[in-house]
């Protein structure tokens, strides 16, 4: 058994950034005992990563690894500038729906055989948000309802770790029958986050007929990556003439404050 054991490097330190936003640099490095004999290091990741920088490697490594988006680098040990150290910088280039763990692997190869593997795992964080409606989304506007105070309440639920910036509601009229007219008034909410609840928009309904309205939110992270929530669908049926107005309110559901000011 002892004869079969592959000699492995003694790793002093392995580090990777604890988290990063999409397209934010992820730094990582590995320190091991000087003098450990191997032929190559293979740096790889199965995810959508861009690796723009390896540190303390010679120019030849770049020449032999021209594809920085492929998630694979082969580093000949003779091209390491410092024995026992390699570092790199990577970026996750996709926008995941929610926080996502990604891994990089560094393999030590000798005689075409992997003698040791180091896994470096980090979390790509996003300001993921989900919207749901606390109101009935199938709204029939009849004579008696026209005198009632109507409102549509949306709840925003936080499903990602990163901070949210520039939160804005969108309301799209998906379908509208001929005799029904919808006008959307969005309040200029320069300070959407100061109080976590507030009226965002009003839907003014004139005439009679039916309409389908889709609502959701767009927002950014602090690096200005853009995101969009799911949408909720309001089905409106109005059987009487006259004008009705429905204020649309939203409420943030989160244990910790997660929204930053507009830049």
């Amino acid at each position, binding site marked *: 058994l002892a004869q079969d054991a592959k000699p492995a490097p003694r790793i002093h330190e392995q*580090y990777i*950034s*604890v*988290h*990063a*936003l999409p397209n*934010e*640099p992820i*730094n990582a*490095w590995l*320190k091991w005992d000087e003098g450990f004999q191997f032929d190559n290091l293979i740096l790889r990741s199965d995810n959508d990563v861009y690796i723009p*920088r390896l*540190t*303390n490697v*010679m*120019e030849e490594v770049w020449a032999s690894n021209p594809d920085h988006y492929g998630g694979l680098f082969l580093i000949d040990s003779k091209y390491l*500038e*410092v024995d026992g*150290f390699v*570092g790199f*910088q990577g970026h996750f280039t996709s926008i995941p729906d929610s926080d996502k763990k990604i891994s990089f692997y560094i393999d030590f190869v000798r005689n075409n055989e992997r003698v040791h593997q180091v896994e470096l795992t980090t979390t790509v*964080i996003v300001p993921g948000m989900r919207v749901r409606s606390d109101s009935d989304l199938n709204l029939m506007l009849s004579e008696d309802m026209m005198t009632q105070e109507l409102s549509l309440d949306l709840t925003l639920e936080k499903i990602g*770790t*990163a*901070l949210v910036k520039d939160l804005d509601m969108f309301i799209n009229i998906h379908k509208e029958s001929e005799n029904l007219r919808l006008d959307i008034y969005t309040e200029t909410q*320069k*300070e959407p*986050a*100061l*109080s*976590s*609840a*507030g*009226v965002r928009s009003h839907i003014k309904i004139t005439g009679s007929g039916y309409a389908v309205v889709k609502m959701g939110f767009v927002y950014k*992270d*602090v*690096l200005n990556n853009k995101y969009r929530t799911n949408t909720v669908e309001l089905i409106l049926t109005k059987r009487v003439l006259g004008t009705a107005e429905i204020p649309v309110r939203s409420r943030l559901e989160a244990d*910790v*404050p*997660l*929204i*930053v*000011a507009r830049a």
Partner: protein
Amino acid sequence: MPSEIFSQIFESFKVANVVIDYLKHTGIKFDRSAILDHDNQLLRFRYGLQLGAKSTRTEEFARKVKAKLASKLEIAAANPPMVTTLPNLEDVSPYVVTSGSSTTIDIGEVLDKVSSEILVIEFVQQLTPLARDHLFPIPHSFRNPIYGPNKVVEIPVEMITDYGSFWHKPYDSFVIRNVKKEGGVHYLEQEILQLVPEEVKKTIVECQGAKTLSSQVARQLTQIAAASAGFRAFANDLEIREQLTRAVTTDKPKNVIVLGVRGSVREMDIKGHKIVIPHEIIYTIALELEGKELAASAKIFMDIAQVDEIVRNLANKTF
């Protein structure tokens, strides 16, 4: 690496490498260290030659060294090197001659004449900002700090060096210091409402939700907007800066020095009224890598509960 940058880095180390080659050739034991001041790009090289005390320095040793010295040590540096001896600061000026940007040191004469044990030679080279940033890229701190439990915000900082072949092996110690970095944490708007007096909070919330303002509420809002100018102290008051500085700590004081913390304010528009509110907590840190470290990570902690207390006190004075 583009050849222009390579040649800039190479030039910065060339003189120092000539000195190392010369001293190695003499057979004198010596230690060598370098310090890079990241802020002003000054790279300071220091060599300590072990001459041994004159009383114990054998003629044989001096003869051997001198036999190897085909020429004097020449240092081509724009600023003349500092040459001195330890432990006694003896006058070595007769053996050091500067002409233009070249200085020669007669090591053989030094060996004959000085009684101290160590000859110290120190000189500086000015790196270009480009070369500096390639050798030691600006450290990374994350744009999205994590708001952790107990209202402590955690900001990771990472420092990583490059082109170690220039300095890692040739030097016993390589220190990179004074790497200044500024960062900020947004003071979350939702928090501010919890810190102002209840009647102020009530008015602001009412105003945000209302389509139109009654004349009474509009008057209240005007008063709040006028009073909110007191929040400007969050950015300007020196005592508040000191209090904010106390709210920022690090897990690696060896690598991170907190130089100062200040606040900033911004104007928030509510129904046409400009209300001043605390906006950002801006920290300035100096980072340091010692003893040939190739990379290091650290965490900066910002105690938001302490900042809340500062804002609450200020709000009570303001409104």
